[in-house]
């Protein structure tokens, strides 16, 4: 195994992106993700890549559109308010079937909000972000190592399905330092991109990258085809981690930092004899419905632990087909629930079961 290094989550994303062959980065600084841009600024010139601090988030996402059209791996990163600015570009990328990686290291909102961690962009990420019928693949890391691994995975999925992949992290994940191995990341060669606008050399028809379709029948057909592709992704690409779910009466749903906190609470509750488990969605879209549906066959209650006012809870209710109650255990505005709060929620739900 290669030597480990000590990295911030943000740095791990940047290092993994370069390792995955992303040589083009465009961004605009915003706390708590600025270390991504800072790392890119230092390293991109040394590896022959492009680092460009754009004049705005909107400019950056349109630069991403340009590089993606040329078939190269490309990324941008921001934090919540900045990602809202990118909304139009995200929709255009989807409408043009372009692969790219977008990183959102979330902070408390709405509005300018604050600089403390949050998961309140769950709806924005899993339901679109921009206008129109579309999805992004949304990946939620829960460690610095996973920040690196899911960055690589994000580029692969984006290229395979010609769509945007988003790393949806929170400020804690971006700022915390942990040992990480970048050298060990396995990089598969990027697929051919015969659709890219790389010049015809007078040997083929022009490739056109565009999201404008004035004939409604054709636009409908494009939407149908895109959703056929989404179906394949839902069937093949869901990722999740299960922890002590097999015999659980109570199942916690949590992602990112909330899952780390919840894991501690699960262990504490088990010591008290309460049968609790954890399902940690790693893909937030596609949402891992299957493990929740299966758990609902034996579990009596679910708890959704989130750093927001209750967003993923709706997906948990849908996935469990409302067979049993789903309770919310949350903090908002940049606050993080501690294991004690989650344990108390478990005890309360457990009391209700009896």
């Amino acid at each position, binding site marked *: 195994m290669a030597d480990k290094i000590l990295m911030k989550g943000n*740095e791990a994303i940047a290092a993994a992106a370069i390792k995955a062959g992303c040589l083009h980065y465009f961004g605009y600084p915003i706390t708590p993700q600025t270390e991504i841009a800072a790392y890119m600024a230092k390293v991109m010139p040394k590896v022959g890549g492009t680092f460009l601090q754009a004049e705005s988030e909107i400019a950056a996402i349109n630069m991403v559109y340009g590089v993606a059209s040329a078939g190269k791996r490309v990324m941008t990163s921001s934090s919540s308010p900045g990602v809202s600015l990118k909304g139009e570009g995200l929709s255009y990328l989807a409408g043009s079937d372009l692969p790219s990686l977008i990183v959102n290291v979330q902070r408390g909102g709405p509005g300018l909000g604050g600089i403390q961690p949050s998961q309140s962009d769950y709806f924005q990420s899993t339901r679109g972000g921009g206008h129109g019928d579309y999805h992004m693949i949304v990946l939620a890391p829960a460690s610095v190592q996973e920040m690196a691994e899911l960055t690589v995975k994000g580029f692969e999925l984006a290229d395979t399905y010609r769509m945007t992949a988003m790393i949806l992290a929170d400020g804690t994940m971006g700022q915390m*330092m942990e*040992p990480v191995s970048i050298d060990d990341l396995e990089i598969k060669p990027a697929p051919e991109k015969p659709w890219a606008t790389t010049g015809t050399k007078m040997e083929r028809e022009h490739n056109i990258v565009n999201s404008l379709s004035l004939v409604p029948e054709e636009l409908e057909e494009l939407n149908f085809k895109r959703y056929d592709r989404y179906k394949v992704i839902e069937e093949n690409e869901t990722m999740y981690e299960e922890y002590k779910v097999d015999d659980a009466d109570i199942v916690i749903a949590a992602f990112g930092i909330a899952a780390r906190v919840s894991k501690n609470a699960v262990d504490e509750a088990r010591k008290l004899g309460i049968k609790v488990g954890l399902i940690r969605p790693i893909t937030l879209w596609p949402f891992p419905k299957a493990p929740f549906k299966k758990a609902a066959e034996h579990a009596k209650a679910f708890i959704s632990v989130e750093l927001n006012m209750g967003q993923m809870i709706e997906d948990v209710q849908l996935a469990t087909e409302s067979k049993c109650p789903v309770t919310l255990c949350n903090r908002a505005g940049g606050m993080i629930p501690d294991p004690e709060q989650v344990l108390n929620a478990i005890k309360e739900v457990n009391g209700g079961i009896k």
Partner: protein
Amino acid sequence: MNYKRLTILCGHYGSGKTNIAVNMAFDLASQRDHVAIADLDIVNPYFRSKDSEDEFKEKGIRLICSDFASSNVDLPSMPADLYSITDDKTMSVIMDIGGDDRGAYALGRLRDAIRIENDYEMLMVVNKFRPLTPDAESTIEVMREIEAACGIPFTGIINNSNLAVETSADDVLSSVKYAEEVASLANLPLVLTTVEDHLYDDLKDKISPLFRLKLQKKPI
């Protein structure tokens, strides 16, 4: 450790300056009266010396720090009492400077007064496990950038190589060679190697001088 009146801690972003500064302030306060810690970080709004404010109060250490540090107001600014660092010659100060050359620009403001008084140590904190300073050459590159930004040459190296919670005694032992190479290439002394409290007994006979980090801010 023998302290000059001013102990300036600079280094690569995330090299551990703040943690060392806080521990040094406690160490210094155990030797002298009238000790201050100056948090002059203009880069990072998180993980600041100010986070240990209560412990400083308890030990009578003065905190010189922007009102906006650790306030979530993401505003790079200098404290109003900045010049007391150089004006009040009866005070011994540990100075915690922001990372990389960006952070060191703030220190440049005090350059002339510091160099004229000439009672300071300017220490480069290094961690071989950080991604952009894995060897002596890359570390020297960061050193030169910092010196160019603040206009104060380094006088020594602090080896703070660690892998956070996963740090083993062997990791620290193996890092000494790297730190010696940095020191040798920079033609400066390796002033000390730091070690977390729980590894101190394992290493106290193997590394000298070894600085014990008693207070460790734990991650969430």
